[in-house]
């Protein structure tokens, strides 16, 4: 890793520095694991609390969960279609909630107060490994969706309007996870960097609107990731006539 020490000698930016944990032959980024498990724990706690005492007239947390359920159902139904959206709603919902809570958790929780020996805590989605894993999961699931719904007829999709499209469709299978992962990673990392640089330059007031912009972008990116995942799955299960 050739870090250029003179690029940001002034701001405390730690790009490419990680807290390494050695497990067997694997070197993993410890700070990403910690924040991911915090996010997963928070989501689990929210869902368990919200569904403990269910009432006919939803109140409080249950109301929030029902709103989220409606939102995710509409998203999945418009992209995947009436027939199979039920099978994929949990997947889309999990993606959306995990990315959304990671992004906002990275921006809202003052992680800097916790000192690590190296690297720093932040949004798990600001690490390329997390986003690549999520994007590859999406790739696997649209193949699975297509093959399980249509069998080998799924491959008709590659030559659908004309066989000339074949190379483009094959390349598309590789560019889909690439663009999904880079979009999310780049946006979240860019938000963190912009805020960090502005905090260094003007520590007062000025970073606040940029932070709000960052929150907004983070939410939109979670929505885009979930929408695109649903769209790819919908494309794979769609019947051609």
């Amino acid at each position, binding site marked *: *890793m*050739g*870090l*250029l020490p003179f*690029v940001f000698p002034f701001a405390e930016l730690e*790009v*490419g520095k990680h807290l390494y944990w050695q497990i067997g032959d694997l070197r993993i980024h410890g700070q990403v694991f910690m924040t991911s498990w915090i996010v997963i724990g928070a989501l689990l706690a929210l869902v368990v609390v919200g569904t403990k005492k269910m009432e006919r007239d939803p109140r409080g947390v249950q109301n929030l969960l029902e709103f989220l359920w409606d939102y995710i159902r509409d998203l999945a139904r418009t992209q995947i279609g009436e027939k199979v959206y039920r099978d994929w709603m949990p997947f889309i919902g999990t993606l959306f909630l995990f990315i959304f809570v990671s992004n906002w958790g990275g921006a809202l929780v003052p992680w800097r107060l916790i000192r690590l020996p190296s690297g720093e805590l932040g949004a798990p989605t600001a690490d390329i490994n997390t986003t690549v894993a999520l994007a590859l999961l999406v790739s696997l699931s649209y193949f699975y969706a297509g093959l399980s719904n249509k069998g080998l007829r799924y491959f008709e999709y590659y030559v659908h309007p004309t066989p000339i499209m074949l190379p483009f469709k094959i390349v598309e299978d590789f560019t889909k996870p690439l*663009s999904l992962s*880079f*979009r999310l*990673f*780049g*946006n979240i*990392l*860019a938000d963190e960097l912009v805020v960090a640089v502005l905090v260094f330059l003007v520590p007062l007031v000025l970073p606040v609107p940029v932070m709000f912009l960052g929150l907004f*972008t983070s939410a*939109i*990116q979670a*929505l*885009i990731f979930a*929408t695109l995942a649903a769209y790819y799955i919908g494309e794979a299960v769609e019947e051609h006539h």
Partner: protein
Amino acid sequence: MDSITTAASVVAAGLAVGLGAIGPGIGQGSAAQGAVEGIARQPEAEGKIRGTLLLSFAFMESLTIYGLVVALVLLFANPFAG
């Protein structure tokens, strides 16, 4: 890392973001133009237009972000650093 590689990396990082911002800038401009025209013609559709506009903005923005990712790789994780 030798100084030629360093200089080339820094210049390339600047160019990656700068040139990458041109296309999406033009695209976002024309998308916003279309949205404003749509709202002027049909003010009651403002909510729907705004939602679609923001979603497509995010798509265009991610093109610049790809340039930014390349720039960050060049600055912080340069594969040619040796």
